């Protein structure tokens, strides 16, 4: 990055670690006796703690949602396009909280953390966590931060699922849920992609049944493949076409199987970078949390019935070229909210970037999101 920080950046931020020593019961039946969550906050909490916004991260996200950890950091947090002064989630008005979920690999307790009982990394013994578990842990974090009621809980993709779950599990603890590029449950195709990713990881010979920490190795190839297949589903055919087309790295075909097309080397590069920074067991857990998410499950598949407890107001946004969670999945959610007589606004944003569009500012997305959040801010006097 340049010497000076952009004016609409939250600037240099420092993550905080919160320790919890009261056991948390998880949906799988197990409990964690103690755990920690790594959190970043931006902006100031107002006197009556009414201006707090929770940001829930997606599959490979974490607490670092906006700003920079140091002046040398090349890239800002993963949702910097939407969080900052004057941005849709305006840090001049809101107190923004972003965390790394339980099971994560960026400082919160997860498979690569030490299990106090064995003094070795949890590895495959780390319990499978669900969206509901995350929401529960986020509510405990809110207690710790003195936030009784969020002005809004906001998330894209897997983050949107958490926002939806919040509205059902803690109906009186949020005023608005903003659910972006998300879905009320995965389709068979979605689960299939996740399974390919998991198979890539678990069949890597360096995986060692999840005990790779003990062997001083990481299942790099498996993680890389998992990320490559995931990455393809996050982009659209058109955006990939525009970025790479059929461009070759050299002029001519080589009649071999090295990366000859630009898109191949791009995917390999992205996969390799990812395999260096992400934990394989966490990837398994996060994709499983995606698979399991289905609030209608306990209501005979009737999402409208599941929605009856919700009290907050909803904003649902989808993107026209998102084929991972396409707009009809968002409409399914919206229709259930309508049937349950909840207040909901919905827009399908025309954007060419596929699922990843929720991370990329486009004029309509930014203005609709800003208009809604501006109204939330006015409502809470921020």
């Amino acid at each position, binding site marked *: 990055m340049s010497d000076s920080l952009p004016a609409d950046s939250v600037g240099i931020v420092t993550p905080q670690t919160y320790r919890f020593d009261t056991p948390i019961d998880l949906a799988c039946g197990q409990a964690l006796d103690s755990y920690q969550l790594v959190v970043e906050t931006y902006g100031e909490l107002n006197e009556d703690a009414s201006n707090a916004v929770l940001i829930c991260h997606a599959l490979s996200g974490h607490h670092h949602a906006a700003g920079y950890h140091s002046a040398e950091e090349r890239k800002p947090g993963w949702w910097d396009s939407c969080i900052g002064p004057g941005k849709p989630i305006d840090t001049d008005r809101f107190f923004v909280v972003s965390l790394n979920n339980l099971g994560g690999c960026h400082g919160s307790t997860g498979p690569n953390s030490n299990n106090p009982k064995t003094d070795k990394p949890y590895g495959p013994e780390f319990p499978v966590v669900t969206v509901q578990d995350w929401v529960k842990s986020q509510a405990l974090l809110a207690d710790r931060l003195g936030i009784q009621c969020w002005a809004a809980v906001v998330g894209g993709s897997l983050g949107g699922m958490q926002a939806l779950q919040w509205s059902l599990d803690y109906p009186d603890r949020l005023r608005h849920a903003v659910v972006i590029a998300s879905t009320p449950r995965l389709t068979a195709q979605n689960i299939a992609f996740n399974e390919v990713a998991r198979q890539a990881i678990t069949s890597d010979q360096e995986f060692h049944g999840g005990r790779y920490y003990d062997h001083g190795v990481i299942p790099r190839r498996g993680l890389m493949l998992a990320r490559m297949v995931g990455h393809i589903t996050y982009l659209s055919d058109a955006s990939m076409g525009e970025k790479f087309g059929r461009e070759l790295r050299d002029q001519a075909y080589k009649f071999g199987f090295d990366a000859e097309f630009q898109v191949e080397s791009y995917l390999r590069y992205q996969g390799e970078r990812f395999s260096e920074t992400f934990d394989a067991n966490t990837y398994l857990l996060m994709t499983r949390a995606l698979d399991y998410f289905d609030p209608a499950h306990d209501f005979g598949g009737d999402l409208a019935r599941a929605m009856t407890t919700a009290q907050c107001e909803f904003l649902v946004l989808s993107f026209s070229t998102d084929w991972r969670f396409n707009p009809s999945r968002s409409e399914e959610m919206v229709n259930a909210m309508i049937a349950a007589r909840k207040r909901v*606004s919905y*827009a399908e944003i025309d954007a060419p970037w596929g699922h990843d569009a929720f991370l990329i500012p486009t004029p*309509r997305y930014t*203005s609709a999101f800003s208009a*809604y959040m501006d109204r939330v801010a006015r409502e809470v006097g921020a």
Partner: protein
Amino acid sequence: MRPDLEIIQNWIQPGHHVLDLGCGDGTLLDFLQRERGASGFGLEINPDHITTCMAKGVAVIEQNLDTQGLDNFDDNSFDVVLMTQALQAVRRPDKVLDEMLRMGREGIVTFPNFAHWRLRWGLALSGRMPESEALPYKWYNTPNIRLCTFKDFEALCRQKGIRIKSRRVVDGKHQNSWLARLWPNLLGEIAIYRITRENGT
């Protein structure tokens, strides 16, 4: 206050759940929420209007009546279904009327009158497609594809067994005029109809 808003407001009771088809920038819903304590949704397809609704705190859903229909709304799920200045822009206004009275106990519809004297006069004299304050478009770029007269609309209601509970006629600026009340199909520019099913109350 705009007379058409005042007229419509008087037909909405506090706490009424309303659906506004083609809600535009949400002016009417915002007004009904604040003045009448109504709740409900607007449906709209114009992105700028949708954003304006969100800023106002009007619940708005992006939905195209022509391509997506209204199946996502249950029977009798609203007290009143509104449609102001949009009937003439949908592909099948007759079907939309059926849907309005399926979803709501009552419907309120406003649309421009193609039999207004100025339009008749313009067409007769110039031989060109008429334009007016209520219809400010050229024939090739108008969103209004199903123009009708008050008489046409009332004939359709009779044919469908739709009961007209009230009709108020205003001019292009939404002003009341006694002349329009006297000869509505000739002198009225916009009508506000309050309709219900034949057996409705």
